[in-house]
């Protein structure tokens, strides 16, 4: 469950379809499972070879889930907007609005009211983005940048106005209620036994899985549920089809009677709402922060990156968010030695890649990955410890490395970022 990266080059699937064959291409969910299995295999091998078992402990996956959650929400928000053809760099601002809304709602009405308020506030940000980009045809990046500024300014302003009298601190809300957490006790105990059993592979998988069924908040469940849900809505319903068509070719959509404006507005409202939930996941989880100025700290941008990483697909972005959350959690809770172990894992991965590329007779790529593997192995072998200052940025390094290795052909929606005006197509 940690690195479900959908890297299957879509063009290849397309190429096989040109001469229709009886064999159907691997369905997306299966590919996700395969990637997850592969990831667990690499991690457990690494953890076995390096003797660092935090790599696959239940704790690691539990923190990973928590750290991945805001990013997952933001990425989903990005997905909805960008599938409808609107670049949403304003996710950060919408998240900030969400954090304020979550604290405000939760303070007065409990967690669910907080969540609702976060969604509404985020959606307001989305609405503003829609007005600017859809109605006024403003450049999407301009509008996004402006929304990031406005989100920050408005949240600060509102906090000053509303929270200051309550908490005595304009930058922080008073303590607000948090979501309870739930554990699937039976499952979790069984997995705990397995994890203790110290069997290579099984114990690792059990450990990772156990972290995902213990002390889970409803918000995390919601987040995970929203991934398949987004897929179903966007790819399996009429509304989703229309929405995606606005991102691919709005003029064609218009010519078929689709109201492009309405769908873009809807997409941005959902997008903003999801980003707002991302904000809520910083505020309403125990161990979280209440409202705190600047607490999003660039997670909106990371969410956007996770979505691009996931090739504008729900499964892929889940992989991106999980990858980020996992390496961040590992880095925070296990520190430098675990990161070094990750290096070792990357060596394994690159070695496999080299072999695959050799079989495919792609000499250059094989050579490059062999070189990369050698370099990383040297880092692993020569150091007991990586520069302390760089450890906190492990997730960022991992993201870049995985992207560089995975060589995926990204396929953004075709009309993304383009201005669309009714009746101006040809």
């Amino acid at each position, binding site marked *: 469950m940690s690195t479900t990266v959908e890297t299957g080059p879509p063009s290849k699937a397309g190429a096989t379809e040109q001469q229709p064959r009886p064999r159907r291409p691997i369905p997306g969910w299966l590919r996700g499972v395969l990637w997850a299995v592969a990831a667990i295999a690499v991690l457990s091998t690494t953890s076995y070879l390096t003797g660092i078992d935090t790599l696959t402990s239940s704790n690691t996956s539990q923190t990973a889930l928590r750290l991945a959650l805001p990013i997952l929400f933001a990425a989903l928000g990005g997905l909805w907007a960008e599938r409808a053809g609107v670049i949403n*760099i304003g996710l950060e601002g919408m998240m900030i609005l969400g954090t304020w809304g979550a604290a405000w709602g939760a303070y007065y009405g409990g967690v669910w009211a907080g969540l609702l308020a976060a969604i509404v506030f985020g959606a307001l940000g989305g609405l*503003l983005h829609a007005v*600017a980009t859809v109605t*006024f*045809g*403003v*450049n999407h*990046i*301009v*509008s996004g*940048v*402006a*929304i*990031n*500024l*406005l*989100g*920050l*300014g*408005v949240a*600060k*302003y509102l906090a*000053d*106005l509303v929270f200051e009298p309550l908490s005595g601190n*304009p930058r922080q809300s008073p303590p607000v209620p948090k979501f309870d957490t739930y554990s699937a006790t039976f499952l979790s105990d069984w997995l705990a036994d397995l994890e203790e059993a110290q069997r290579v592979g099984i114990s690792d998988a059990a450990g990772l899985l156990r972290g995902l069924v213990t002390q889970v908040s409803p918000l995390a469940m919601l987040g995970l549920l929203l991934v398949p849900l987004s897929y179903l809505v966007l790819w399996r319903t009429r509304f989703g089809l229309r929405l995606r068509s606005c991102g691919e070719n709005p003029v064609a959509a218009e010519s078929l009677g689709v109201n492009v404006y309405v769908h873009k507005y809807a997409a941005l409202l959902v997008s903003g709402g999801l980003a707002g939930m991302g904000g809520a996941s910083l505020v309403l989880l125990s161990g979280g922060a209440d409202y705190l100025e600047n607490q999003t700290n*660039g997670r909106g*941008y*990371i969410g*956007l*990156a996770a979505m*691009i*990483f996931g090739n504008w697909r729900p499964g892929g972005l889940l992989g991106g968010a999980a990858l980020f959350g996992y390496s961040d959690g590992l880095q925070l809770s296990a520190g430098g030695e675990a990161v070094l172990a990750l290096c070792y894992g990357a060596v394994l991965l690159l070695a496999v890649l080299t072999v695959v590329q050799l079989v495919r007779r792609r000499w250059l790529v094989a050579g490059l990955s062999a070189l990369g593997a050698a370099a990383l192995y040297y880092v692993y072998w020569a150091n007991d410890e990586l*520069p302390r*200052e*760089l*450890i*906190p*940025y492990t997730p*960022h*390094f991992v*993201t*870049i490395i995985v*992207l*560089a290795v995975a*060589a*995926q*052909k*990204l396929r953004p929606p075709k009309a993304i970022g383009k201005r669309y005006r009714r009746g101006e197509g040809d």
Partner: protein
Amino acid sequence: MISWRTALLPPVLAIVVAMALSSVALLISGADPLEAFTTMGAQLFEGTTAVDTVNLAVVYYFAGLAVAVGFQMNLFNIGVEGQYRFAAVIAAIVGAAMELPPVLHVLAILAVAMLSGAAYALLPAILKVTRGVSEVITTIMLNSIVFGIVAYLISADQFGVLRGNNISTAEIPETGWIPGIPLGAAGTMFGSVLIAVALGVGYWFLLNRTRFGFELQASGESPTAATAGGVSAKRMTMTAMLLSGAVAGLIAMPELLGRDHVYAMTATQGYGFTGIAVALLGRNHPVGVAFGALLWAFLDKSAVSLETIGVPREIATIIQGTIVLSVVVAYEIVKRAELAAEQRRVGRQTRNGMPASVSQGGAV
């Protein structure tokens, strides 16, 4: 073709709208908008604020141009932030270690800064060109990673020097400073303001008069057509990214060489992000970016003065956000109004004279 109306009306409109909106916010929080705006305006004539504003604008100008270079070919270099900080710390370290005669020293530091900025942009550029990795992701990641790199380089074990509770690089010798322009009581303007002017002119010339600029804009307008016209999209991506990084390398120089002479752990961050807003405000045009930078710097400076009269400083941020948004909306509205006017004009012509003739560019 841009008429004065399309060029000037929108920003004015936008500022009016932004002021109106923030007045509402001010009223809600119980402040007097009039007082707030007067204070903001008046501070320009107090002390060194005017010069400080220009100084800050110089920094923003570099940032804006760095972003604008990328925008010219639809390359979104959100990584200017990381690039300038990387360049700043390297330039500070190298500059302190070098011993050179005055002018040469400065030039050497500037060169190092531009090279380092470009170097930090190299990875995203390579990954984009060879692996098709989106520059948006890589630069976002590198923006965070730069924190670690800066911290590593200025830690006491590496090149850092402890100054009180602060740590910074060693001080650059005086030969490496860019002398300021003393303006008496009004303060001292950064000497870099001249570099900024030169860079602006150079940028304009590069874009509008050189083959490189043509190719850059062509690949921005249509990568496919540019390819068919003999412009290698990959090479342009690479050069644009590196050029953007090189300009980004200059962002910290006015402060580093003109005032601080060290790069400290407390050095200001976020100029790269401001650069995005400034470039967008100035519509990537060298003169426009200059105005954008000045406006932004002015608003930043006002924030400080607002606090002294008890007005929440967030107002300045809100004004900035609204201005960006309303400027572009205003451009759009004005453009449409012009279009409608033109349509009416054509309509009148056709009714009076003959129906659209070929020579008049009618329906041909």
